[in-house]
């Protein structure tokens, strides 16, 4: 926990924050609307005697009263998919429409890819890329298990992603849910911070900048890019946005999200960031009883 002490100036009610970080997460799943309606999925859970609680902000996010949501008929059929509540945020913010072309730049293991496909009614095209071949097999397994038929899977470094295989030259939207230092996942994985170093934060921030830049370049003018991480580090969040604002044609846009959040921060440890990064949202574990998360919405200005 001492690795989180550096965030004390940013987080109100810091003790409650630290306490929340030490509690396990509730067991949350997303209903896969490609295969079932929320009504049918909850009816199946009822039949099996698995208690569930809905979420006010979404009829597809359910908390289950079981530690093994995978051992249910609803899961076998691909009607539900284990996905932490905050992990369902960025695809909702991106809000892809049926028929659109969407790039999921860091797609494995596929929770967000399959959510994008569901939001698009499994139409249009999701290009799901990941640079790691091992993780790619999990991505492919999950897209097929959940019945996704509108996804194309590619295996390259997103920083150098090429649209060459495809017969179009830009995406309508892109989701940039980057690899990060994962501080926000401490409730799911208590050892998440064991390998945390400032060097790692700096190195991963470099990769994040490269991926976000490529996503902005690959998205059409007027299109939307959503940038997200599961970390609290401003070096990987606001600083990356600040860099993208500097070097690419884009701007941050306001968005509403029906969970309690705090705005992006404009200064940290002597660094100052563009004022507009306030439009990003920070989700803290003690506010909604979730993991930690960061999400920003950008418009490509061409």
């Amino acid at each position: 926990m001492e690795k989180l002490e550096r965030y004390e100036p940013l987080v109100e009610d810091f003790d409650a924050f630290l306490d929340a970080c030490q509690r396990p997460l509730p067991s949350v799943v997303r209903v896969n609307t490609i295969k079932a309606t929320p009504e049918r999925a909850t009816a199946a859970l009822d039949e099996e005697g698995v208690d569930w609680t809905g979420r006010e902000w979404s009829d597809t996010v359910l908390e289950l009263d079981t530690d093994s949501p995978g051992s249910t008929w609803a899961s076998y059929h691909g009607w539900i998919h284990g996905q932490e509540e905050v992990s369902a945020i960025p695809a909702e913010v991106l809000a892809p429409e049926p028929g659109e072309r969407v790039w999921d730049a860091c797609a494995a293991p596929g929770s967000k890819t399959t959510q994008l496909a569901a939001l698009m009614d499994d139409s249009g095209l999701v290009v799901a890329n990941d640079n790691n071949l091992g993780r790619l097999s999990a991505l492919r397994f999950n897209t097929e298990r959940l019945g996704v038929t509108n996804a194309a899977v590619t295996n390259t470094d997103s920083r150098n992603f090429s649209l060459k295989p495809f017969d179009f030259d830009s995406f309508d939207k892109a989701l940039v849910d980057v690899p990060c230092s994962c501080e926000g996942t401490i409730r799911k994985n208590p050892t998440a911070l064991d390998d945390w170093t400032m060097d790692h934060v700096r190195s991963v921030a470099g990769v994040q900048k490269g991926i976000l830049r490529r996503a902005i370049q690959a998205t059409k003018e007027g299109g939307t890019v959503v940038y997200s991480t599961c970390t609290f580090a401003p070096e990987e969040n606001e600083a990356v946005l600040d860099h993208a604002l500097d070097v690419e044609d884009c701007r941050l846009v306001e968005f509403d999200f029906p969970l309690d959040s705090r705005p992006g921060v404009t200064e940290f440890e002597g660094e100052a960031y563009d004022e507009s990064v306030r439009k990003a949202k920070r989700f803290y574990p003690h506010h909604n009883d979730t993991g930690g998360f960061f999400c920003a919405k950008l418009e490509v200005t061409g």
Partner: protein
Amino acid sequence: MSDDGRTGDSPTNDGQRFDRLPATADDREVEGRATREEVLDWWDQRFAIPPESFEEYTFWEKGKGKIWILRGDVASPIRIEALGMKFLRTRQEHWKPTTNAVQRFGREASENVVELTREQARRFVSGEDQELDWDGDWGYLVAAHELAGELEPLGVGLFVHGELKSPVPKGRQRDL
């Protein structure tokens, strides 16, 4: 000019890329490749799933006889890792649909659908073969059970010699 031994050969299946299936046998350039028409016929003949169900989909071969289904279309050929969903195994005596394809599209089947009890369904998804009283066709069946008020496909089963075999892949098997 070219001396790679392929000059004049007809096109062959390239396992590293996706090629869209030809519409009909007349359009076929690659020997042994299934056509769109044959694929639609197969689902219609075997499970009475009408060809119109697949109007918005394209079919692709990558890997020998592995047919993939994509909602929509992309450029062909295309060298990427995956495209849509693995759908059907051809280039063998009996064509075989995938578990995931049957889960996704099998709801529309009205022939060769076997309804299992909850206990039989449990055995099926754990990968067990079981005796079955079925007086219909032998071969690949849609195995289904009732869940939340409707019949829901569990996957593809293989019925032979009075036994329902479970081809549910290891990674999809569950103990429920």
